[in-house]
């Protein structure tokens, strides 16, 4: 007697397509379909269901970036297209997530440069891209439209929409057919509300990824972990306003005490393990894209996800 791991659930996680290849009108070498799960995270035995993806986070102004990554990468961080390229060719990331940190300078207004940056990154790597726009509502609209337009046809994932701040990004996503990240602070109901708001202004479900906000390991991760499990579980039980795939980025991992104050010789290792343990646990809770900043974490996570996926199919725990 085997056992069915579907436990009687009827709902499924929705699907979202990221990146467009030439045949779809873009220039990416691959496109991903995330979502589609019908049982608990990582348990789907369907060989076509996706394994979690790993995104390397980079930025266009390293002043705003972790010194640990800056030390590890050296000059690379001064050239965002090369950085993007190594994400693909050296570290083996599935996606590149570009933070437009240059826009964080006071009174930033050089919108054109944002378009240029995006162009160089698009030519630096052939991976699908996630773009994090400004931090400042005043320039959101221009920045998101610029990104949307520059990468038209590429099926970007644009970030980040929040409850008080989603119109500009939604407008850019709608105008140029990109998807977007909807972030809410660790709360199932807030996540749902935001998705409803987005739907009301026309963003389709299959263009939304939920970011339930990830507290760093030891600094609130347990709340995020449970929020993710609850979101996934609600989707399986049929709540379509929560049935979007999830993305997680534990951005505080490199600034928390244990990592920041690690002995210099151990610091890279500490950063990687902190990101790695968080990433594995987040994937087990339902995150389908795990974002990290230390380049070396990418390979570790990819190997681990591959081992989970290949083997889930071979277990005897089947119908």
């Amino acid at each position: 007697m085997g056992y069915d791991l579907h436990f009687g659930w009827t709902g499924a996680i929705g699907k979202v397509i990221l990146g467009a290849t030439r045949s779809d009108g873009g220039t990416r070498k691959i496109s991903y379909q995330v979502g589609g799960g019908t049982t608990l995270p990582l348990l789907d035995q369907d060989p076509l269901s996706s394994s979690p993806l790993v995104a390397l986070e980079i930025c266009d102004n390293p002043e705003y970036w972790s010194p640990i990554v800056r030390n590890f990468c050296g000059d690379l961080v001064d050239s965002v297209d090369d950085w993007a390229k190594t994400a693909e060719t050296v570290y083996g990331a599935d996606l590149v997530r570009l933070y437009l940190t240059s826009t964080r300078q006071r009174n930033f207004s050089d919108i054109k440069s944002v378009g240029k940056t995006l162009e160089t990154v698009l030519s630096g790597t052939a991976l699908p891209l996630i773009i994090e726009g400004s931090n400042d509502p005043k320039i959101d609209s221009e920045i998101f439209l610029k990104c949307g337009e520059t990468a038209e046809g590429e099926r970007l994932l644009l970030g980040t929409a929040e409850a008080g701040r989603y119109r500009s990004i939604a407008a850019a996503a709608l105008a140029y057919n990109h998807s977007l990240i909807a972030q809410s602070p660790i709360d199932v109901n807030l996540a749902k509300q935001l998705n409803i708001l987005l739907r009301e202004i026309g963003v389709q479900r299959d263009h939304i990824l939920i970011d339930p906000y990830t507290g760093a390991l030891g600094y609130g991760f347990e709340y995020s972990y449970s929020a993710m499990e609850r979101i996934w579980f609600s989707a399986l039980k049929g709540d379509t306003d929560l049935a979007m795939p999830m993305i997680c980025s534990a951005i505080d991992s490199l600034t928390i005490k244990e990592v920041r104050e690690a002995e210099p010789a151990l610091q890279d290792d500490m950063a990687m393990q902190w990101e790695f343990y968080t990433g594995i646990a987040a994937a087990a809770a339902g995150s389908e894209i795990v974002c990290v900043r230390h380049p070396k974490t990418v390979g570790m996570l990819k190997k681990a996800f591959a081992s989970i996926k290949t083997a889930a199919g071979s277990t005897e725990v089947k119908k």
Partner: protein
Amino acid sequence: MALKALDIYKLLPKKNCKECGDPTCLTFAMKLAGGKADVDLCPYLDDQAKSVLGATTRPPIQRVNIGVGERSFAVGEEFVLYRHDKTFYHPPGILFKVSDTQTPEEITTITIRVRDESFTRIGTELRFNGIAIENTSGSADAFARAVMTVEESADLPLVLISKNTEALIAALVQVGSYKPLLHAATKENFRELCALAKKHSCPLAIKAHGLDDLKGLVKDCVTEGVKKLVMDISPQSPGDFIATSTAIRQLAITRQSPDLGYPVFLDATHPYLQDAAIALGIVKYASVIITPPLSPASAKAALTLRQNIYTDPQKPIQMNPGLYRVGSPGKDAPVLMTVNFSLTFFTLQGYLESTRIPCFMLIVDTEGLSVMTAVAAGKLNETLVRDSIKKFDLEHEVSHKTLIIPGYSAPLSGRIEEATGWKVMVGPRDAAEIGEYLHEEWQKQKS
């Protein structure tokens, strides 16, 4: 399916003799119904009642204790699939593995590391739990010697791993009374191992692959009279582990397969997937995890993940609000205000201790929320600060009226000044900068 308290009561002897530790048979019945007591506690139950009650009233996952003394630990007795449904109760024991082919020095070093290493987070000491000794050599003598080497340096819970029953017997001569976990009973040797486990009252690991074989072996061992079992599900990969372990947890807590209601054992040994296996083990229901010694970074990450996942989601770890002292502060010492979320408290306290400036910490009751969360939720406000100053009699404790507040609560500074009449200084956002701040700003305003 679970029985109701009254149904259970009908099967009890109704002597109200208190020998079970409960005042009446009825209260005992209520405990049994909640899965909080063991039928064996009542000495007067007849076998029939016992067998009816045994399967339905014990916790859906059997509790198993490993080791004796201070470092012994309990696993099992879990009730939910998701931590948010209630909480997870018994964090997995993580034990470092040594082999009897290692030198005594190597074995001793690892043992002492597990004995002494601890990592304090949020006021709790996080440690690894014990040593698993593997009989790689195949020799009973070598195994017994390795076990003695471990035993000579520490009283830690042990797992004895051997395919050779003679080796286990030899080791048990030394450590049989310390309740080590024996690993492992299989289809082939379960009778011998059950006899050993019974003789020494040790918990026993069974090893099989696949739910049917596991169930079969559990039944065999229970028939032999051994109930303190853990199941080595011998996964072929991390993916196999999570699928099998999840199925077991689900089947056990719903009592669909009571025979699977035992804690899960995981050997995380793997050339490069060890950390993945440990992380998955922690989040997905492993109760005993053995692993080669971890690097310092993996060690901290693993222990922190375990602490996070096994924190009760209904009550974040909180401090009692009040006035706390760092060092022996005088009446002119600075007063730093913060919230009663224990993580915040211990983080700030750690940095304050290293500044070596004696001071007061005024902990206000934000119901366990961190600074930023409390500000966002409106829990941290001027009224709370005013009332706390009064309640903890700050006016008499210090000779000044200056309060340092966290950087993230800066928007409240004006309102706090108005409500309290105290001068407010906005500290840095990051507690790591508090030393510098006190040396510069506090000294400046004093002079």
